[in-house]
């Protein structure tokens, strides 16, 4: 996975002189050390990171990809072992990100342009069995449809890992839904259960997020809860249940780019390029589908994108 080892350093200076003259780039690399971008285990993140990495390479930077765990990586970002993380989701990584930024060792480089959606989701074939969906009020009557022997007579809602938060227990109580929240331990387990239910056309309602391959692969819909407002989470009086908070849907939020605080000092040009990086949900969905559903390689999909959007990424690196 790593494309350039740190052992290359002694030869690097010469290499860069060469690369510079060849490319004739205006924004040259300020340091020849490799910029380390983290790779996680979901396709969308691999795509965004590869796009950024390839663009930086074309600007003459030495780039290294390091596989890392989504949350464990903050330890590395703080110490400067890792430099850039391309996708920190408002919805799942906010707490870790805020904690890291508060130390002053990590900085937030702004939005990626993608908007994270997280919500209760169901496959389309359930619409006949539970009329009234996607409105959340329909769930009140269909809870037994989603029941399993362990949860009966209450419905079973498959939530994300405990660490994702999400306040689903509170939501169920505040909206008077007759559901039991079961937490999947990991993302993989969560989608394994959805896949299994879809194969059997069995009832399931679960926490799904986008951009992700699942809402592309399976036909389905988000449940429409009363839309989120900050007041809903903070003020019990807000919304349909005057006595409890969380009587609304989940917040939707941006996906952030995060970097080691020393990035700007060492590679100011790279920092500016990363700050300028923007892609949309639609583009991303398309690329994820190409990789996960059509089986193309991430590298090929990224190369396609780069050749189709040359003007865009050139502006990021000031060319």
């Amino acid at each position, binding site marked *: 996975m790593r494309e350039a080892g740190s052992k290359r350093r002694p030869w*690097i200076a*010469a*290499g860069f002189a060469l690369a510079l003259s060849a490319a004739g780039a205006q924004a040259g690399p300020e340091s020849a050390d490799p910029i380390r971008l983290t790779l996680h285990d979901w396709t969308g993140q691999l795509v965004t990171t590869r796009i950024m990495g390839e663009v930086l390479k074309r600007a003459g930077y030495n780039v290294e990809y390091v596989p890392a765990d989504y949350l464990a990586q903050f330890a590395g970002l703080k110490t400067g072992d890792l430099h850039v993380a391309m996708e920190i989701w408002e919805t799942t990584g906010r707490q870790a990100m805020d904690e890291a930024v508060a130390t002053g060792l990590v900085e937030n480089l702004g939005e990626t342009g993608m908007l994270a959606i997280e919500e209760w989701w169901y496959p389309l074939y359930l619409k006949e069995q539970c009329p009234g969906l996607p409105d959340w009020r329909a769930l009140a009557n269909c809870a037994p449809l989603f029941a399993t*022997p362990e949860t009966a007579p209450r419905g079973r809602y498959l939530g994300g890992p405990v660490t994702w938060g999400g306040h689903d227990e509170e939501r169920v109580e505040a909206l008077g839904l007759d559901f039991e929240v079961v937490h999947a331990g990991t993302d*993989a*387990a969560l989608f394994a259960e959805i896949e299994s239910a879809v194969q059997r056309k069995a009832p399931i309602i679960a926490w799904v997020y986008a951009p992700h391959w699942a809402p592309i692969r399976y036909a389905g819909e988000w449940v429409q809860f009363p839309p989120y407002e900050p007041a809903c989470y903070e003020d019990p009086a807000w919304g349909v249940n005057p006595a409890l908070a969380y009587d609304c849907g989940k917040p939707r939020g941006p996906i952030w780019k995060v970097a080691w605080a020393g990035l700007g000092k060492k590679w100011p040009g790279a920092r500016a390029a990363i700050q300028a990086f923007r892609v949309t949900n639609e583009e991303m969905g398309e690329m994820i589908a190409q990789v996960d559903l059509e089986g193309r390689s991430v590298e090929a999909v990224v190369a396609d994108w780069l050749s189709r959007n040359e003007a865009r990424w050139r502006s990021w690196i000031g060319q």
Partner: protein
Amino acid sequence: MASLALREAHGGRLFGPAAVGWLAAAGLSLLFSLLPPRTLPAFLYELPRDWRLPLETWLSASMAWLVEEAAIGPLRFRDLTRALAAFVEWPLALVRALLVEGFAGSGSPGAGPFAAPVSWLAVILLAGLLAARSGDRSLVLLVTGSLAYLALFGQWPSAMVTLSSILIAVPFGVAIGMLLGIAAFRSARFERLLVPLLDVMQTVPVFAYLLPMLFLFGFGPVSAILATILYAMPPMVRVTALALRQVPSEIRDFAAMAGCTSRQSLWRVLVPAARPTLVVGVNQVIMLSLNMVIIASMIGAGGLGYDVLTALRRLDIGRGLEAGLAITVLAIALDRLGQKAASRGERTRQQSADGLLDRPTVWLALGLAALATTELGRAFPFLAAYPESLQVSTGPLWNELVAWINVHFFDQLETLKSALVLNLLAPVRRFLLAQPWPWVLVLLVVAGHRLGGRRLALTVFALAAFVVATGYFEKALVSVYLVGLSALVATAIGIPIGIACGLSDRLWRVVEVVVDTLQTLPSFVYLIPVVMLFRVGEFSAMIAVVLYALAPAIRYTAHGIRRTPPPLLEAGCAAGCTRVQILRHIRLPLALPDILLGVNQTIMLALSMLVITALVGTRDLGQEVYIALTKADVGKGLVAGLCVACIAMIADRLVSAAAAHTRRRLGLVP
């Protein structure tokens, strides 16, 4: 059958005064579980926050101090650990360059490497020759076949990344382990200090110390390797101390008579004499290192572990299985090579004169040949990298198989699962969680006292009190429930299989492959299909735990049964025993210590799976450790991890004491 023998062994004790006491205790426990909720005050189930030992905060604070401020003179502590990391980084970079990346000529993009990595053909060739040195043809087939699998299924580049980490971690683990083991052998006081430390190292879940490792040693393959060494080394220490102690006293006396200095006597006499047992330790280090591949990939080691995780996140079960099997294949090939290398030790010394492959010139020529294929790879790409067009994948097949089972048999599986959950899992869980901590402490202390005297009672009390004082009692009970039931099921399945394997060599050859696979295949690979068929939850977690913890129950039982001294068997035959009688009255009682050791190991392995079960949504100590990792909470992770270690040590001490008790009862030990 085993239970039959056990009951016989206990004999009359069932109705003694002690039995009455235990019956009364069971009655009281049952009473607790029947109490309506909230009859007893809440602090009897979990200490309120203000009463707890603030160990987590202390640990987090001291970790922060260690990373940010601690210094010895002008040298910051962190710089020291970083220097240590660089010490490991250097050989790793070398091996990686050799196997994966090639040596860089210049940093400019597009400029080819100065020297290409060793080609796949050359690696297979060299490994095959290494195996050929043993003169065992089936080993050559196994090793080359394994490596060919890696190339054929497109796992080669990742496998080499993993292999280079292993090639660094194993020698370090073996060397450090041996040195510590020798120190323990020489000084009893050092050993007394070391043993509890080893226990903790082996039982604290890796996730718990991953964070401190990351802070101190940086993010990347080096931290992963250091974590691997830490995890894989303890058996080497234990085995070394044991092996040296087992060297017959005649040999030791001989060394003394020959006038050896203590250094000479150690390295020239004791270590060579202990070699066969030392190899068992090396084997353990290799196996455990490969167990860490998945976790290591989470902190930047890449390789096969990363491929497994990526494939499974995409629910590509087939691809995940192929990458997982690549780990297994690598483990088995390395293990068998290591075993042969060890047993070769004595033989080659006699044969080396005529062994063609032992001549340095032959090796030089082979090395040159390998280099040639590597260099030729520039002209003929298929030599450098196995061509993609010739790669195969059985991926889709596996995905379809799971889908087919899912569509056709889900209802039957669901019925079975519901019956088990409602009638077994749920009642046991309710029963355990209803026990207040003072009562559990009393029970543990009494059990400890009966089995091992005052010392054991005190140890067990201290360990359990730690769990209560840190506020993890309830989570610990959930863990005990998960692990206890799984270990019970695993032994119930494993011991009969083990007995059958002990009696039939042919069966054992088949089962051994299955057992090896189960132990080295990352559990994540089968966790996903299990979740598809049984949903997220404790039931799925238990299946994964049972599958993993089954191995020692089978292995040790088979070993014990097989080891029955032939004279005793002949005596049995002569006395006219039937096969069943021989098994029941001779083989089983003699194998009992081995079986109990297997049970002990089954419990330990089941506990080590706690962190994995957190990945399918259990709410136990494993989950706490996992949450701590995701929130970068060093203190919480370590404390919850130590609680797991406490449970493990309590179980270990009690089972060992019970085993000793039984042995005395059977008259196996004077």
